[in-house]
């Protein structure tokens, strides 16, 4: 198969439904992507179910409890230099930091495929730094809530499940971000050394898939836990 036809086939989803049938009825290979990418996607689908279990569990306890649910907009308000507390400001900043990191990651993937190693490494390091910033802000948020007396079994304002959901969901997400920072730095180091010059730079895209997934999960946590 010539090079340009491979590109066209991978490039624009052109085969649609008949392509789906064709791919699933082949003897050899269903997914026409590098095996690492297929495995990353399968891992992410399984991770989707883990986070979904947390969020559905959160919905269930929140719907079933008769205790009042604490007001996230007040709990996560923050005042700067003695100003009135600004509602939810820290969470908004964390959201912007994570979206920015998703943007730098998308650019890193693009420069990887252009074989611009320097820009790829720099953008991956920027992504990791933004991720570390996010985790730092989350640690600050945790310490504030611990200071208010929020525990996994009680809090001063209402339903005790608020604390358990908060620590479990944001903790598990923060763990994913921390793991992603380490993963990004390891891959960035290998890109820098030129380990992928022969193999190609799909690995940057695979790392990017994980990172965008972490951002994707935050979109749902932000909406369901902090805004609703």
């Amino acid at each position, binding site marked *: 198969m010539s090079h340009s036809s491979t590109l066209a086939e991978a490039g624009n989803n052109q085969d649609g439904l008949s392509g789906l049938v064709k791919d699933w009825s082949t003897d050899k290979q269903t997914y026409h992507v590098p095996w690492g990418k297929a495995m990353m996607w399968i891992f992410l689908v399984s991770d989707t179910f883990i986070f979904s279990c947390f969020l559905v569990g959160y919905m269930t306890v929140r719907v079933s409890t008769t205790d009042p649910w*604490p007001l996230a907009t007040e709990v996560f308000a923050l005042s700067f230099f003695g100003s009135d507390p600004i509602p939810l400001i820290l969470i908004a900043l964390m959201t912007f930091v994570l979206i920015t990191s998703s943007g730098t990651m998308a650019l890193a993937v693009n420069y990887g495929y252009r074989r611009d190693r320097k820009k790829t490494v720099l953008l991956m390091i920027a992504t990791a730094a933004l991720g570390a910033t996010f985790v730092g802000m989350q640690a600050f948020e945790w310490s504030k809530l611990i200071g208010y007396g929020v525990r996994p079994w009680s809090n001063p*304002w209402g339903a005790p499940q608020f604390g358990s959901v908060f620590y479990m969901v944001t903790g598990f997400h923060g763990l994913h971000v921390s793991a992603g920072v380490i993963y990004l730095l390891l891959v960035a180091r290998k890109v820098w050394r030129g380990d992928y010059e022969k193999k190609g730079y799909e690995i940057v895209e695979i790392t990017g898939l994980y990172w965008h997934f972490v951002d994707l999960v935050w*979109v749902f946590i932000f909406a369901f836990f902090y805004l609703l």
Partner: protein
Amino acid sequence: MSSASGQQHPLGIYLKVWILLFVLSLFSYMVDYLHVQGPLRWTLVLVFMALKAGFIMAIFMHVMWERMALALTILGPPSILLLLILLMAIEGNYTESARVQYLGHDPMATPGHVSH
């Protein structure tokens, strides 16, 4: 040159989606900041959430350019979660009504305010 077989797209589309995600996040924050309440709050928050999730998956994660066999593997199994959400919402509402009816709990209690 093996690299050209991967997902390669113009930079512009990433930058546009990036800005769009910023704007959508700002909108969802404004929903809270401006104290929009009730069904309108739910609608706006969920619409902005769905748009953000959709753009991240479609563009940043390249799902819209993948072959349908892979795209359906990614999107198909999680769609069953809608059923789980429905069942658990019914179950949760039943539990709450039982607590109100048999244990005399007050479902209308208001949460304590937070002093900073």
